[in-house]
């Protein structure tokens, strides 16, 4: 039976509620549970989850719904009381500093008059209005929220351009401004390489590699993935180019993105002609002919882009980068041969489980050169779209950060549960040869990824000792999780850790090829 408790006018942010919801679902006697604000979207989710009650009709955005499914009628009171305690706990946790939190942007600026950036991560339907308020108050904005209409994005960016403001996002998760990592970003060295990115994890991978190579970042600006679409017209991408062009602390510029719309690419290319600083571009999956006229140095992978930027920063010939990558490939051959030995006959497929969407894309691009029929829930070629994202088929690369997985749940960089389950699911599949995964470190990400994932890998290794586990770790030694330490723990447990996502893809490619021989 399903029972509900409604708290009118009690607002909690969605992340707090997800944390509570997770705990509630694990309570004794609870079959299913959800704790959500009574928005239209949440109500329709409840309907699909069979947790909807007719009385919910009368409630709206500012009312809290606690819905419990249980066969133990006598336990409901106790369960509701426990939920209540959890909510009180999470609210008190917020208040425990005793400091006054302003209720509005307006008052926040009064309290901290020198404020210059607003980071906004509200639900999409509120985020646009709040971002506009921030811009109008003269603040630069990082808009983390997604589900903001594209018209709103255009309006925000237009206003920002007219007022010399930086408008990052919507759907911008990563930026490093004046050396400070914001939201989901890594603790990188300061240096003379500037990055402009329409891809969050792409930016994380490039900036982390640069930092781990001993070089540094002047500014890393995330524009949000839609900036390079035709409608938005690259407004912030181009404005960022203009800014970094004149920035005396930036000597090299790296552009990271999916292929921009041709009209936008044309604009970017035109802009590049007026920039005397070296520019490295990685437009993942773009036809390299399209890029030639830009005058930019083009890279094929995120890693290559990072290394090219480092070489330029170090006044080295850029040919050194391809020499280095070529040299390294030889070592990879040996690693692949060793791994193939341990994979039993009949195991033939790669199963890639990603928390970073761009990393998933990059592996697809690298693998598809040699391997046919790679399925994905963000297939670059629609004919290879997974019919059911929850079930792998042949070679499969899944981005667990896609909406279908994150509705009502934290992003897989924070909450490992779903991917952990999927790892076990893949380990049980007799056709799985390789489980590939990414670990993204840095601020915003899970504080102890090893604790989350290692026990599961060990379990999977018991289920299937004849599977190869391959991984790459995006992050730096200065990140709170510490990349070096993370890699050591993984390697100690028989996981092959590659220096980059691209390198991981290369190893996978070699192993699959060897299996097929």
């Amino acid at each position, binding site marked *: 039976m399903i029972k509900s408790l409604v708290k009118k*006018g009690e*607002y909690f*942010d969605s*992340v707090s509620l997800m944390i509570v919801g997770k705990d509630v679902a694990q309570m004794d006697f609870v079959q299913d549970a959800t704790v959500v604000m009574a928005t239209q979207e949440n109500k329709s989710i409840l309907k699909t989850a069979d947790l909807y009650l007719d009385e919910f009709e009368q409630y*709206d*955005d*500012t009312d809290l719904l606690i819905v419990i499914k249980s066969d133990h009628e006598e336990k409901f009171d106790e369960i509701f009381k426990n939920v209540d305690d959890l909510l009180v706990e999470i609210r008190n946790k*917020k208040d425990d500093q*005793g400091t*006054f*939190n*302003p*209720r*509005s*942007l307006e*008052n*926040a*600026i009064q*309290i*901290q008059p*020198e*404020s*210059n*950036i*607003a*980071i*906004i*991560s*509200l639900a999409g339907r*509120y*985020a646009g209005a*709040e971002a506009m308020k*921030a811009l109008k108050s003269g*603040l*630069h904005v990082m808009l*983390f*929220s997604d589900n903001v209409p594209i018209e709103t994005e255009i309006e925000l960016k237009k206003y*920002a*351009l*007219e007022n*010399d*403001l*930086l408008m990052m996002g919507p759907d911008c998760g990563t930026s490093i*401004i*004046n050396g*400070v*990592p*914001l*939201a989901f970003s890594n*603790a990188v060295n300061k240096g003379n390489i500037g990055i402009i990115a329409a891809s969050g994890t792409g930016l994380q991978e490039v900036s982390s590699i640069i930092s781990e190579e001993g070089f540094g970042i002047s*500014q890393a600006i995330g524009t949000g993935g839609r900036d390079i679409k035709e409608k938005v017209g690259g407004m912030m991408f181009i*404005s960022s180019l*203009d*800014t970094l062009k*004149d*920035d005396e*602390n930036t000597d090299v510029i790296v552009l990271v993105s999916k292929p921009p719309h041709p009209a936008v690419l044309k604009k970017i290319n035109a802009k590049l002609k007026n920039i005397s600083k070296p520019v490295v571009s990685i437009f993942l999956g773009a036809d390299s002919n399209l890029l030639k006229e830009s005058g930019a140095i083009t890279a094929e992978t995120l890693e290559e882009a990072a290394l090219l930027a480092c070489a330029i920063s170090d006044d080295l010939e850029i040919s050194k980068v391809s020499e280095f990558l070529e040299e390294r490939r030889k070592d990879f051959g040996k690693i692949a041969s060793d791994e193939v030995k341990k994979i039993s006959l009949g195991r033939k497929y790669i199963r890639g489980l990603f928390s970073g969407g761009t990393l998933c894309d990059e592996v697809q691009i690298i693998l598809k050169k040699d391997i046919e029929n790679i399925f994905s829930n963000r297939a670059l070629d629609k004919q290879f779209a997974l019919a059911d994202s929850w079930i792998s088929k042949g070679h499969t690369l899944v981005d667990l950060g896609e909406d279908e997985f994150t509705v009502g749940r934290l992003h897989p960089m924070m909450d490992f549960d779903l991917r952990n389950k999927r790892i076990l699911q893949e380990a049980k599949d007799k056709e799985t040869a390789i489980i590939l995964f990414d670990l993204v470190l840095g*601020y*915003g990400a899970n504080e102890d990824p090893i604790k989350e994932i290692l026990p599961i890998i060990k379990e999977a290794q018991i289920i299937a000792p004849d599977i190869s586990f391959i991984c790459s770790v995006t992050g730096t030694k200065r990140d*709170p999780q510490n990349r070096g330490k993370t890699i050591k723990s993984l390697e100690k447990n028989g996981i092959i850790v590659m220096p980059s996502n691209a390198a991981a893809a290369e190893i996978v490619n070699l192993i699959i090829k060897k299996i097929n021989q």
Partner: protein
Amino acid sequence: MNFKKLFDKKIEVVNIGLDSFKDDLEKQGEKVVNVEWTPPANIDENILKILQKNKTIIEAANEKVLEIILNGKPYLVGLDIARNVIPGMKENLLLHSGPPITWDRVSGPMKGAMIGAIIYEGKAKNFEEAEKLAAAGEFEFSPCHEHETVGPMAGVVSASMPVFVLKNETFGNYAYCTLNEGLGKVLRYGAYDNETIERLKWIENELYPTLKNAVELLGKIDLKNIIAQALHMGDEVHNRNRAGTSLFYRAIAPAIVQTCDKQEIVAKVLNFINGNDHFFLNLSMPVGKVTLDAARNIENSSIVVAMCRNGTDFGLQLAGTKNDWFIGKALVPDALYFPGFTKDDANPDIGDSSITETVGLGGFAIAASPAIVQFVGGTANDAVNYTLAMYEIAFGENNMYQIPYLNFRGTPTGIDVTKVVEKGLTPFIDTGVAHKDPGIGQVGAGVLSAPMDPFIKAAIGLAKQLKNK
């Protein structure tokens, strides 16, 4: 066009949304302010747009209203009998707190108080008789607020009751309020037994004439000055009136001694005032009323001039929407209950005393009143945070009423309904709690946030008026 100037400064962040982003920045030693964000009120977009479009007009009107509020000079100028002074007062009329209500919808304490008043007026001998008369429509009911009057809790005023007479010397308007009966079984909490009626008679026969003569001798008493001092002495003059009562006592006692020749009455009157920490509430409330009434009918203003509850409904009026009431359901306060009582015993919010919040006192000034923090969660910090939050929805700050702890910052003054709906934040009221049944009395004291509904209706009311022009 570029944003290079951002690179010249250390970043200082305003974080709106996920707390973890703030925590991460703090760990790195960066400056960050976290906004405790709540969604705006659930209100038609178009209404917000109209209000936004007319922002300049509304603000200009609000400036005018704020000026009137800040320039108000409320004095106690005398005492009289309700029927002689309250506009429209007559036999068989009962004034009550809150917005208009009919007999079939009155709450327990309101019913008890009305019955008590009917008995007090000699129209009935007991509950049954009085109830019959009331149910038969023998009495008219009208909100105090529509008669230049305010009343605490049930706020029932009948023709024979003595009242304080206050004058706003700047604008010449008057306000009225009955004399506070003390705690225990009292009319304002819905008690109607002999003890209650006898006390009311004593107030009429001894307290009233004694005070009347004393005030006459003094000419007038500056109440704004007393409140300003009381805030420095730990009152917020809604739930705590100990300092205000003491200051009033100091002002009135010599005059009582001078004007009353019966030593026995002098002693009784002085002891009564001295023994009732809430005596001053019935002066702080009409101070709010006489100050805010002067600011009524300022076209286009979004500032609240009355906010009150009748135990069933919560109502408010704006300076810019004439005498229209905007009404929603009254909520049950989050209270600290007296031993033996729980939330189940509590009546929904009741009384005109939220006029104190409306004028920038009470819950808005609770940072000045650390002694009553147990009502608001336990720590002095909680009280300060409540006041700080109220600056978010206030149009201005007071010039006379100040909070020592906040470096004598003026209290948040002039509740702006547009800010309330935009920020999804309603006024914070501290209040007494009545038992839901007539005749039992006070069961606790506590706090509550006003319901959003009436504010949404008020915003719509104002927007419609702006659109129709």
